[in-house]
């Protein structure tokens, strides 16, 4: 009989470490879409875990039109409108933007929707493409073909892995008393933005309504687990940050609904990525001066840009800490299982074929022959061997793709950290309750909230102090100010002051 849970498998180790399981396939777009789908499917409420509705949502008609691909292929059950039109035929006509029962210019509507595809998802098979999360009627779950040889599509996990369900509960039903108001306001604002009257919803609703009614997707066990996971005590600080930042982004004065939802997408992903990193810092006992991520805003060649080089280093160190935290957690779990008297060590690992299986067999063999509890060093040696040879880098990769997909990473061969104007907008939005503030205060705030270092003041007390010239950091800060001013997020007031977030905080539009 198959073992239900392999306690030393990468996923279990990641969960044991972070309280949540970030995955390399789960980028900002998927995380946000799953969060919003969970809220939408559950009517923006917080149901009892047994009454939770799955976030799976098909929308194959609008999806066929928007992506130009027939997601209803092979579906001959029922009829659409008349006896001659099967769902498959309906999907085919929609995918081609052709005339259907007196329709006109569907091709134009198709081109319009195609412009709304989230570019971050626009790779690989069309079932995983998502529209930007701007309206309830545009939110759908991943789909893929039942098997590579079959032409029909079904809704199932591809890149959405459950973290969005956990995030949705954090917002809709926060466990921490301090987060309740933030979460309530954020969810109300999300609902208002996602349900705002829009011609997009009319297209979606009318096209979907023509399909024979399909059964709702049953809640899967891991979806329920993801919902329950939101109350894990290790996620308390993540919940607090998610609620506060979501409230900040959604409560901004002058941004439009889609603007705020786009920023929400970034705020959620950033919160998860930073939670993962902070946990790794804690577990590895990282010295306080090394707990930072340096953002570089230079435009010089790499060789001349010391800040960029240190930024690369800060990112590299962050990944090393994540890897080290995984080793320590795996070692801890090995010791705990050894103390329980575990015999079948091989059954606790996720064995695959080839070299990975050989390496894990060797590790499990040594664990079997050890006297437990063994010295800590022995567990660490074996954990390191397992991590180096098997696929334990999922959280490290998850961290990377989250940063990539929010626009925090740049460079190809040498990856360094920076921030795009959209991301800066999200940072300003997340802190809207404290806006406006001077750029100096803003840099201090993002140091505190996300561990980002931009200017000299934020670098004080970090290991950067002896590595980068203060003048170079100040120049870095001025570049960041300039970028924010160009993006309409800041205003230069004089030779010494730049004020950030004046618009984010204001209710009136168009006033200085």
């Amino acid at each position, binding site marked *: 009989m198959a073992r239900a849970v392999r306690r030393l498998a990468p996923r279990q180790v990641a969960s044991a470490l972070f309280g949540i399981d970030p995955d390399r396939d789960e980028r900002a777009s998927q995380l946000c879409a799953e969060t919003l789908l969970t809220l939408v499917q559950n009517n923006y409420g917080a149901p009892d875990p047994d009454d939770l509705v799955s976030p799976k949502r098909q929308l194959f008609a609008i999806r066929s039109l928007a992506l130009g691909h027939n997601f209803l292929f092979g579906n001959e*059950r*029922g*009829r659409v*409108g008349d006896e001659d039109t099967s*769902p498959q035929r309906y999907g085919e006509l929609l995918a081609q933007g052709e005339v259907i*029962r*007196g*329709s*006109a*210019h569907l091709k*134009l*509507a198709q*081109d*319009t929707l*195609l*412009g*709304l595809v989230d570019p971050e998802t626009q790779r690989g098979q069309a079932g995983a493409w998502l529209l*930007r999360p*701007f*309206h309830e009627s*545009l939110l759908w779950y991943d789909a893929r073909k039942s098997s590579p040889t079959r032409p029909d599509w079904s809704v199932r996990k591809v890149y959405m892995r459950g973290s969005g369900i956990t995030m949705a509960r954090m917002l809709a039903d926060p466990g921490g008393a301090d987060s309740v108001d933030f979460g309530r306001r954020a969810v109300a604002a999300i609902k208002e933005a996602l349900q*705002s*009257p*829009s*011609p*997009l919803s*009319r*297209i979606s609703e*009318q*096209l979907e*309504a*023509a*399909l*024979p*009614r399909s059964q709702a997707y049953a809640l899967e066990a891991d979806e329920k687990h993801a919902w329950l996971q939101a109350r894990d005590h290790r996620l308390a600080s993540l919940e607090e940050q998610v609620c506060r930042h979501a409230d900040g982004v959604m409560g901004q004065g*002058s*941004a*439009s*609904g*889609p*603007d705020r939802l786009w920023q929400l997408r970034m705020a959620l992903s950033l919160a998860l990525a930073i939670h993962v990193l902070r946990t790794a810092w804690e577990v590895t006992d990282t010295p306080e001066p090394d707990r930072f991520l340096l953002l570089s805003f230079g435009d010089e060649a790499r060789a001349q840009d010391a800040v960029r080089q240190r930024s690369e280093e800060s990112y590299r160190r962050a990944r090393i800490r994540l890897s080290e935290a995984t080793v320590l957690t795996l070692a801890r779990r090995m010791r705990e299982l050894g103390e329980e008297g575990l015999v079948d060590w091989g059954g606790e690992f996720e064995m695959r074929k080839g070299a990975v299986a050989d390496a894990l067999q060797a590790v499990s063999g040594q664990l079997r022959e050890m006297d437990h509890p063994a010295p800590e060093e022995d567990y660490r040696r074996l954990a390191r061997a397992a991590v180096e040879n098997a696929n334990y880098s999922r959280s490290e990769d998850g961290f990377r793709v989250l940063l990539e997909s929010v626009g925090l990473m740049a460079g190809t061969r040498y990856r360094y950290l920076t921030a795009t*104007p959209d991301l800066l907008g999200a940072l300003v939005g997340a802190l809207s309750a404290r806006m406006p503030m001077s750029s100096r205060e803003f840099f201090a705030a993002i140091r505190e909230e996300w561990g980002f270092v931009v200017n000299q003041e934020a670098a004080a007390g970090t290991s950067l102090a002896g590595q980068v010239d203060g*003048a170079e950091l100040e*120049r870095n800060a001025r570049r960041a100010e300039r970028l924010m*001013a*160009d*993006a*309409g997020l800041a*205003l*230069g*007031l*004089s*030779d010494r*002051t730049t004020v950030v977030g004046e*618009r984010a905080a204001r209710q*009136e*539009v*168009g*006033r*200085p």
Partner: protein
Amino acid sequence: MSGHDELPVVTALRSLSVFSADQSAAYREHAGAAVDVLGPDAGSKLGRWVSGWAAGGTPGMVVLTGNAGTGKTAVAEAFCRTVGAELPAEDVPTEVLPGRWVVKDLSGLPDPRAREETLGDLLEKAIGGQVFVCANEGVLRDTLESLAEPVALSTLESALRQGAARAQNPLLTVVNVNRQRPTADSLWPALMDYLFREELWGGCDGCPFETGGCPMRSNAEKLRRPDVREQLRLLVRLGAGEAVPTLREVLAILSWAAVGGRTCTEVKDKFRDLGSEAFTATDAYFTRAVGGGLSAEVAERSPLLTGMRAAGLGEVTDLEIDGWLRDSTGAPSGVRELAGDPLRGASSDPGSSDVVAPRSALAGSRSPLDRVRTLQGAMTFQALGEMVSTDEDPTRVEDGLDALVTSVGPEAAGQSLWRERVFFEGSGYVGGPAAAARRLLDYRHTSELIDLARDAAAGRDTVLAIRELVRGLNFLVTGFSSADEGLVVPDPACLFARDPGSFRPASPSLVHSQVALLRLKVSVPDQGLVEELLDVDHSEVELSVDGDPARVLRIRPRMYEAIREAAEFQGPVGQGVAEMNDLRGFYGHLAAHSEPEDSLRVADPESQPPALVTVGLPHFTSAGAP
């Protein structure tokens, strides 16, 4: 001659510049020596109004809020001077005369409680006396909130939005000095005269100006010309579209433009040693005004200067103007004079015979402003062009080309200097100031924006301008270039599919709603009391729907440029994300304030002529059959 080794105004201007170590005069408290030379201040409308109020003795409180460097302390000094008192040295409340109190900086008080007590006490004193307060916006708001002074608080909020506001009992006037514009009609010439009036620039002992050897006096002389002042004003206006222009920054830039970091002694010594080769156009106001001579690190410290540099002066090519540099024979005589053409009636010898370059390369030179440094020695623009175009010595041609197109460090290339000089001094030969701006700046429509703002402020007809704005806006947000359907409001989501800066054709956009042209209004932001109290400059406009302050698009030079380019070219426009962020906010509010149309319509950028196409969805009588 003034009888000084060092001209006092040179020392004063050097100390006004925040770009060098000596910047004492940039701060009012330390500006004594500079004030002795230049005079108490340039004479702003606010200063005159406060002086009048002080002289009249009407009880009340005047609060100035605004950023550092906007001139609040100078106005406080004017208040004190009018009543015959000295500006207090301390920030704390000071009774400068019986019944007259001055708070130089409310945030100078140690803690919030002290500020509350002080302000509460002063509000009472304002019933029978005069109270003058300078305060930072945040500190003032916090203090008024803690004091539970709703009237004062709402007056502050109104002032922050509208520039100035007034309340009664006690008479409270709050002025947001951030809304003051140095480029205002009366303030700009006053500022220029404050620094460059002729009486200040008589010359020091042994000044080589008359022999074309003093770049500082040459600069000051040009900065007295009305056409030069207007062009500089335009650049400052463009910079002000990106940042709040404080008086401190403007004075610093003007001072840097005229004297840089030079001293009279240095100029005289260098001229003595090198003759006319000592100074070239890299010391000229026309390049220094846009950051010439400053490293990029220093220049980017000033948001205003950064904004002025973003106008691209010196970088924008113009075939005719660049051609005059290479061959000035066909150019108007005035242009040839600017180039230092010796055939254009110049003094045959700008310096004494022993200081002129031996090779006649400086034969037509009148001042350092027409000279360029090359590896072949300093020469006039005209001589440089001639060397590059006709010289048979390949080394000289190579050196000439280097000097023409290559900038070394903070020193601009010859052709950039030439374009800058023509922009300032040769506008009359290229079709006037507006045409010079259109041809030599990245902004092609600024003068039209200023005209529009003036028309709107004066209540003149703006219907045609609105139509043009709508045409550009429609193209920017939907790729649909027509104003016939009014302002097309796309679904806010569709704005994310639009990138007007790219060469990707626009996607069709779903139309959320439309706004008829008659419902649109163009106005200027600074109207009413703020116009009475502050020097404002109408150089930006607001496009509003039904006069609703929540549905307003602020159109500054960059946004106007994007709109006009979109209307004119109907292709990619080189604008950044700021414009799209503003547009997303504006259209988001328009969509939020109106119901979507009943019919489904798409703005189709491909259709000719541009059209809003109605999309018909399939007709179904009921849900799909199981």
